[in-house]
C-alpha cells in the first residue's frame, strides 16, 4: 500500500501544533507508517538515555488502536486526574481520498489522458497529505506524553514503547463502547450538576469561564476554517479543470490559444495554498479544540473533586450531628480535601503551562502560515508576471 519515509526536511515543514520541550533523554518519532486496508501501522522509533528502558535505541510497530488504548489507560489512572491529558489522536481517515481515487478509476475513460494523470497526481498528493497529517498527530501525542514529567514515567507508556511485538490490544467490545457512551452521558449530566457548585478559587473560576468560552469559539473558528479551506480547494480544483480545458483548446487550436496555457500553472499554487492553509491553521485550531477539551476535562475532574469534598464535608457535618461515624467521615473529608488540593495545585500548573504552550503554538503556526501565504503569493505573482510577459511578447 502506501508507505512514506519522512526525510528530515519534510519533518521541518511539518506543522507541530505543540511546542515540546525537547529533552534528549527520551526522543520519540514515527519515521514510517504503513497503510493496510483500514489499519495503519506506525513504526515508532525511540531513542533514550533513561535507565528504565532496556535499550537505548529501538523501534516498535504500533497501530492506531494501541494509541487509543494508551490514552484510555492514562485517562483512567487516578493519579493523573490533575493533569491535562494529551488528547488522543483522531482515527485515521483515508476514506475521502480513497473514494475519490476509486471514482477516478471509474471515470478514467471519460477524460483525457492528461486530465486523468493530473487528477491522479492531485489525489495522490491529497492522500499523502492526509497520511502525513495522521502520522504527525500520533507522533505529537507520544511526544507530549514523553515530554511530560509524570507521563513519561507511566508504566503503560513504557510498555507501549518497549514491547517489541504487536500489542494487539483488545478492542473495546460493544458493551464497553456503550459503557463509554453512558459514562460520557453521566459526565455531561454531572457537569451540568456541579456547575452549580460554587467555585472557591478565583483562578479556576476564571479559567473555567475562559475555557468554556474559548472552546466554543475555537470550535466555531475551526469549523469555519475548514469550510474556508474546503472552498479554497474547490477553487483550486476549478483551476485544475480550467487548465485542462485550456489545454485541450490549445491542442485543438494551434493558433490563438496556445499562449494561454500558462494560466494552468496557477492551479498548482492555489492548491498548495489551500493545503498549507489547511495544515497550518486548521490543524492548529483542530488540535486546540481537542486540547481544550482535555483542559476542560481537567477542570471537570477538579470540580468533581470539589463537589466530592463538599459532599464529604456535609457528611461530616451530618455525622457530627448524629454523633456517629465521625472518625470515618472526618477521614473521608480529609481525603477529599487532599485530593481536591492536589488537583487544584497540579491543575493550576497544568493550565498555566497549557496557556503558555498555546500561545507559543499559535505564534509559531501563525508565523509559518503567514510566511507560506507570502511565499505562495510571490510564487504565483512571478508566474503570472512571466505569463503576462510571454503573452505580451508574442
Amino acid at each position, binding site marked *: 500500500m502506501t508507505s512514506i519515509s519522512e526525510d528530515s526536511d519534510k519533518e521541518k515543514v511539518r506543522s507541530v501544533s505543540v511546542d515540546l520541550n525537547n529533552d534528549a533523554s527520551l526522543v520519540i518519532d514515527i519515521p514510517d507508517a504503513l497503510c493496510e486496508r483500514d489499519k495503519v501501522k506506525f513504526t515508532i522509533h525511540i531513542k533514550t538515555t533513561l535507565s528504565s528502558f532496556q535499550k537505548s535505541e529501538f523501534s516498535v510497530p504500533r497501530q492506531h488502536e494501541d494509541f487509543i488504548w494508551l490514552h484510555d489507560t492514562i485517562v483512567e489512572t487516578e493519579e493523573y486526574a490533575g493533569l491535562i491529558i494529551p488528547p488522543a489522536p483522531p482515527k485515521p481517515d483515508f476514506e475521502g481520498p480513497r473514494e475519490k481515487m476509486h471514482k477516478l478509476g471509474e471515470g478514467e475513460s471519460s477524460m483525457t489522458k492528461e486530465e486523468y494523470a493530473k487528477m491522479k497526481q492531485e489525489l495522490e498528493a491529497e492522500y499523502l497529505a492526509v497520511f502525513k497529517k495522521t502520522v504527525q498527530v500520533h507522533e505529537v501525542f507520544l511526544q507530549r506524553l514523553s515530554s511530560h514529567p509524570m507521563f513519561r514515567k507511566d508504566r503503560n507508556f513504557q510498555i507501549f514503547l518497549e514491547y517489541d511485538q504487536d500489542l494487539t490490544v483488545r478492542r473495546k467490545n460493544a458493551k464497553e463502547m456503550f459503557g463509554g457512551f453512558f459514562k460520557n452521558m453521566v459526565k455531561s449530566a454531572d457537569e451540568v450538576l456541579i456547575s452549580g457548585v460554587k467555585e472557591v478559587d478565583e483562578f479556576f473560576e476564571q479559567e473555567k469561564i475562559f475555557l468554556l468560552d474559548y472552546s466554543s469559539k475555537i470550535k466555531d473558528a475551526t469549523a*469555519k476554517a475548514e*469550510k*474556508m479551506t474546503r472552498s479554497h480547494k474547490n477553487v483550486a480544483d476549478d483551476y485544475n479543470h480550467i487548465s485542462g*480545458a485550456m489545454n485541450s483548446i490549445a491542442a485543438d487550436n494551434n493558433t490563438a490559444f496556445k499562449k494561454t496555457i500558462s494560466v494552468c500553472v496557477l492551479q498548482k499554487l492555489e492548491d498548495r495554498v489551500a493545503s498549507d492553509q489547511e495544515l497550518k491553521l486548521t490543524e492548529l485550531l483542530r488540535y486546540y479544540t481537542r486540547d481544550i477539551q482535555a483542559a476542560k476535562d481537567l477542570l471537570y475532574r477538579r470540580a468533581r473533586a470539589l463537589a466530592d469534598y463538599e459532599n464529604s464535608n456535609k457528611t461530616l457535618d451530618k455525622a457530627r450531628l448524629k454523633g456517629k461515624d465521625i472518625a470515618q467521615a472526618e477521614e473521608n473529608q480529609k481525603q477529599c480535601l487532599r485530593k481536591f488540593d492536589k488537583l487544584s495545585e497540579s491543575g493550576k500548573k497544568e493550565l498555566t503551562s497549557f*496557556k503558555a504552550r498555546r500561545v507559543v503554538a499559535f*505564534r509559531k503556526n501563525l508565523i509559518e502560515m503567514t510566511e507560506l501565504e507570502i511565499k505562495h*503569493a510571490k510564487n504565483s505573482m512571478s508566474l*503570472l508576471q512571466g505569463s503576462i510577459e510571454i503573452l505580451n511578447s508574442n
Partner: protein
Amino acid sequence: MAASSERSPPPFPDLEEPELLEDSDEGADAFTGTSISEMDSPSPDTSRPPKDIFNEPPEDIFSDPLSNINSEPQKKVDAKISSPSSDEAVDLFSEPLDDDSEVMSSPEVQNPMPDLLSEPKSGVLGEPPVQKNAARQQDVFEEPPKGSSKSSSVKKAASAEMLGDDDEEEDLFKEPPKVVTRKPQPSGPPVDVFTEVKSDVKVKPQVKDDPTDLFSEEALTAPAPKPSANSSSSSRTNGVHSEEQDLFSEATVELSLDSPRNDRKKDAVKPSVSAPAAPEASSSSKAPSKTLEELEEEESEDKFDLNISVTNPEKVGDGMNAYMAYKVSTQTSLTMFRSKTFTVRRRFSDFLGLFEKLSEKHSQNGYIIPPPPEKSILGMTKVKVGKEDPSSAEFVERRRAALERYLQRVVCHPSLLQDPDVREFLEKEELPRAVSTQALSGAGFLKMLNKATDAVSKMTIKMNEQDVWFDEKIQDVENEEQHLRKLHVMVESLVNHRKELSGNTAVFAKSVAMLGSSEDNTALSRALSQLAEVEDRIEQLHQEQASNDFFTFSELLADYIRLLGAVRGCFDQRMKAWQRWQDAENMLQKKRETEAKLLWANKPDKLQQAKDEIAEWEAKVTQYERDFERISATVRKEVIRFDKEKARDFKRQIIKYLESVLHSQQQMIKYWEAFLPEAKAIA
C-alpha cells in the same frame, strides 16, 4: 448611402487616376487637373483611410466634375483627337468595359456599391462601351488607352497640342502636379510609401501574373484578358486597392517629371493604371469584400477612431412595463458621423432590433453579425420587480457590459459600421420602437438558427465539401465551441466557488475575531484580531477576483460561444447558397432534358419556350454560382477576420485577467506581510 460611399472609395482613385495619367498626355489635362484639385480639398481628411475622402465628396466631385469637366475638355479632345487610333483604343476598352458594365448591372450591383460607383462608372467606365456610338465624354477616356497602348508619340503630340491650345487647360495641368504631390503628404509618408506600396502590389496579386504585365498586355491585346481579370478580381481585390495608390505615385512621378523620357515609363505605367480600373469595375460586385480587407488592414486605426461606451443603465417606468435604458455614447473622428461625440439613449430591445435589422440585411451575404446578449426574462423581471438588490445590480451591470461589447463588435466590423441602421442607432435621437424583438431574444434567435442549421445540414448532407479549408474550418468551429462551452462551465464554477470562498472567509474572519476577543493573552488576542482583519480584506480580494473572473473571463467565453454560433450561421448561409445553386443546376438539367425530348419529338412550337427556359435557368445557375462563390469568399474573409479578432481579443482579455489575478496576489502579499510582524510579536 453610407455603405456605398465607403465602398466606392477604392474605385475612385483608379477611376480618376487613369484619367490623370491619360489626361496628362492628352488634352484632357483639364479634367485631371480639376479632378485632382477637387480631390485636393478633401485630401486633408485623406490622412485617414481613403474611403473617408470619398464619403462625401464623391457625389460632388463626380457628379459635377464628370459633367462639367469632362464635357468641357471632351469637346476639345474630341475635336482634336479623332484619330483612328482612338477607335482602336476604344475597342480595347469598350469591350472589357462591356464586361464590367454587365457585371455591374448584374444583381450584385445591388449591394451598396450603387450610387457612387455606378455614377463614376457611368461616367468613367460605363461610358466607354457606349462610346462608339458617340458619347462625347468617352473620348477623354478612350484617348488615354490609345495613348498608352498605341503610340506615345501620338499622345505627346496630343498633349502638346492640348497644352498649347488651351491656356486654361495648361493651368489646370500645371496645377495637378502640385496638388498631387501635396496630397500624399498629409497622409504621412508621401511618394515613398506609394512606391513601396507599388512593389507590394506586385507581389500581392500573384494569383495572376505581374499586374503590370498583365495589364499592359491586356491593354494592348484588348478584350481577351479582361474577363480573366474579371474572374480573378476578387482575389486581387487587395492588390487592386494598393494599386490605386500606386496610381497615385505614378501619377505624381509622371506629372512632376513630365519629361519625354517618361513616355516609356508611362507606357508601362498606364497599363497598370488602366488595368485596375477595369477589374475594379468588374469586381465592383465584390467591392464589399475588397473594402473589407482594406479595412482589415486599417482596422487598428479605425478602432481608435470610434469609441463606443454604454453607460448609465436607468430604469424607466414601473412595474412590468419598466425597462432599462442605457446611454450609448460615441466618440469618433470618422467623418461619416455628424459630430465627434454624441449620446443617445437606447433600451435593450433597441439593441436587439439593431441585430435583427443587421442580420436581415447582411447575414445572407455571409457576414458574421455579432450577436447581442440574450434576453433574460428572469433577470429583467427581477430588475423590474426588485428594489435595490445586489443580484439585479449585477445583472444590469453584466448586461451593460455585454451590450457595450456587442456594439463595439458591431462597429469593429467594417461593413456593418457602414450600415445606415448602425449609424442611425448611434446617432439618431429617437428610434422607432423595435417590435417583435420579444420572440427574438439572442437565445431564441440562436435556437432558430440552430434549427435552421439542422434542417439545412440534413438537406445538404450530400454537400461534399470541395473546399478543404471550409471543411476544416467548420470542424474547428464546432470543436472550439464545444471546448469553450466546457471551459465556460468551469469558469462559472470557479466564479461560484470563489464567491463561496469569499463568503467563508468572511465568516471565518468573524469567528477569528471572536476568538481573539476571548483570548486572554493580549498579544495573541491582538494577533488574532489582526488576522481577522487580514482575512476580511482577503475576503474582499476574493470578491473582487470573483467579479474579475466573471467579467473578464467568463463573459469573454460567453461572448465567444455566441459568436461562434454566429460563425456557424454564416457557414449555413454559404451552404444555403450552395444548395440554391445545386437546385438551379438540377433544374437546368431537367430543362435540358425536356428540350432534348422536344427536339426528339419534333415539337418546334414548344422548343422555343424550352430554349428560353434553359437560357433563363442558365442565367440563374451562373448567378447562383457566382452568389455562392461570393458568399464563400466573404465567409472565408469573415472567418479569417473573426479568427484574428478572436486571437487579439483573447490575448487582450487574458492578459487583463492575469493582471487582475496578479494584482490580487500582490495585495495578498501586502496583507500577509503586514500581518507577519504581528504574528512575530506574540510573546
